[in-house]
């Protein structure tokens, strides 16, 4: 067995070249009562070690399904991977048995979910749940695991962790529960943390607490952080890069300021126009509604809602390409990116 194949991820960060996580041409479909729907359609992106990446999109864009696929949490048999690869540390996880991915989870890759109440087991003490990974995966004693849980609770800013370690999830407030989730995710020093809508279920002021906590921890630990969200605002402060998804495809990606300020895809421009900022009299929303994933429009899935659409858009599916006259890392999947950018300047 080659060292690199050991799932425990003992290889120090940086010993390998290439990104920590590489998703290539990933396609995932689901069986529904009335036919299969393509939830993820040829998605590719990289996440480098220590990088914070925001995956943005509205409901049905496929952002959460992508995360579930990476974590090996796709519900079977309804969900099916139709193609592509997910490489962690250079090893294609889809090639390996499920047990390989499962062994990486918790130790090397960790996940934070949207609703901390339903994501915590109601019948176990939070300390047990935080220390469980260490206890079951590393075989440490219950007492040691409990001490570790207290330490982790302290790190994520839960007051009086010595007392609260034996409480049950329902005794915590929403914000504190999400801190418990974060403590649980970070307890094994993972190299990649995927947070799926980590603040959506929380109040605005608590949202701010959690986002700044995540950003601080990311800085201290140097882990890579993938933030999945529909809220363009919450990640603007913390993310380095943005990946914007629509109807199962990546439509635009690049440094977050590039994507937000110089949107080169009509969808991202439209999203920005939909956000009330306080200085417009009237919003400029995108017309129409997202498509039915079982009957995607031909060509570019966005064309029925797009002001720039031409015959080409109706027939030819656009691929990601460098945004014209923008920095190299800025990619867009639009035939008319030039006009979109020119329109934005005007």
């Amino acid at each position, binding site marked *: 067995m080659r060292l690199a194949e050991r799932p425990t991820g003992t290889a120090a960060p940086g010993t390998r070249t290439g990104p920590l996580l590489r998703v290539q041409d990933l396609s995932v479909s689901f069986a529904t009562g009335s036919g299969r729907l393509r939830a993820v359609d040829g998605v590719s992106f990289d996440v480098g070690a220590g990088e914070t990446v925001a995956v943005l999109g509205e409901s049905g864009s496929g952002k959460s399904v992508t995360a579930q696929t990476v*974590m*090996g*949490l796709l519900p079977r048999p309804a969900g099916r991977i139709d193609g592509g690869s997910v490489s962690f540390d250079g090893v294609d996880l889809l090639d390996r048995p499920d047990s390989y991915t*499962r*062994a*990486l*989870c*918790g*130790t090397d890759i*960790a*996940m934070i*979910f949207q*609703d901390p109440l*339903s*994501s*915590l*087991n*109601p*019948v*176990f003490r939070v300390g047990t749940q935080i220390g*469980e*990974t260490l206890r*079951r*995966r590393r075989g440490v004693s219950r007492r040691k695991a409990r001490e570790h849980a207290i330490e982790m609770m302290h790190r994520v800013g839960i007051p009086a962790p010595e007392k609260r370690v034996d409480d*049950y999830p*329902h*005794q915590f407030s929403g914000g504190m529960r999400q801190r418990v*989730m974060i403590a*649980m995710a970070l307890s094994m020093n993972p190299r990649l943390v995927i947070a799926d809508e980590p603040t959506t279920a929380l109040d605005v002021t608590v949202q701010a607490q959690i986002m700044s906590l995540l950003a601080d921890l990311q800085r201290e630990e140097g882990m890579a952080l993938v933030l999945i969200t529909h809220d363009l605002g919450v990640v603007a402060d913390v993310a380095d890069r943005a990946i914007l998804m629509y109807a199962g495809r990546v439509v635009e990606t690049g440094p977050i300021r590039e994507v937000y300020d110089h949107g080169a895809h009509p969808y991202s421009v439209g999203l920005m126009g939909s956000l009330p900022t306080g200085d417009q009299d009237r919003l400029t929303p995108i017309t129409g509604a997202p498509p039915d994933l079982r009957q995607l429009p031909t060509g570019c899935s966005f064309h029925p809602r797009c002001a720039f659409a031409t015959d080409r858009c109706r027939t030819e599916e656009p691929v990601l390409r460098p945004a014209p006259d923008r920095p190299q890392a800025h990619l867009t999947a639009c035939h008319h990116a030039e006009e979109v950018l020119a329109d934005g300047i005007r």
Partner: protein
Amino acid sequence: MVAYIVRRLLFAAFVMWGAVTIVFIVLRMVPGDPALVMLGPDASPDEIAALRESLGLTEPIPQQYLHYLASSVRLDFGDSIRLGGDAMGHVLERMPMTIQLSVAALMFAVVFGIGFGIVAALRVNTWADRVITVTSLVTHSLPSFWVGLVLILMLARGLQLLPSGGAGSFAHLLLPAFALALPFTAMVMRLTRSGLLEVINEGYIATARSKGLSERVVIFPHAIRNALIPIVTVVGLYFGAILGGTVVIETVFAWPGVGRLIVDSIGFRDYGVVQSGILVIAAIFVMINLIVDILYGYLDPRVRLAR
């Protein structure tokens, strides 16, 4: 927790009062003169008058009710017309046999019901799941007294493997306990299966998997602890139904328990024994539900602390 138990005890007492009252009301529904009905047409007027007196039928109804309540508290339900002596005494004497039968059936139902339920849930939509589900559906729908008769016909009369009735040995217990347990096993199994399947879709199961825990740990204890919570409640209710079911099964297998005593006493209009038997069974059921409630609090911390 103590306050909670006290409250449950009070409720149990309240329920027992309700049960006693229902029995009283039902017995008032006897058409005609109960004493006449009980003693039959050959009884002398003196005998009837004496029985009326001892039944308290000469008093006005509210007073009868109060007297009835008072004697109920003393566990005094009069004498048995058929067997002579204290009615409750006869019932309590038979009680161990009924408890033996119903506990055996309950254990069978719980062990096999939960076991097959877990297997079916873990192998959902495979042939094993289908076989278990279909079997449970059929066994649930079979009348237990008829199952008892068929078992007697095949195993006792036909193959001569087990005794067809009576009590006294473990072999005697097998057939009645099995016939009694069969529908309840099916219900526990279905409940376990659906409960586990529901729990497996919960967020915390995804969390457990995302922590890299093995599938075995994800199921035991993460999923099963949560799936057990509703099962415990329902098993408490089933125990009452099993106790009720003993009435029929004891008759089929000539099992010398309270159930058969009740049925025999009905034929003789021996109401003292009938009401004693029914109240004892109701009391046991109330007690079981009390235990289940407390166990429920132990299993589900949300309930424990909310109360």
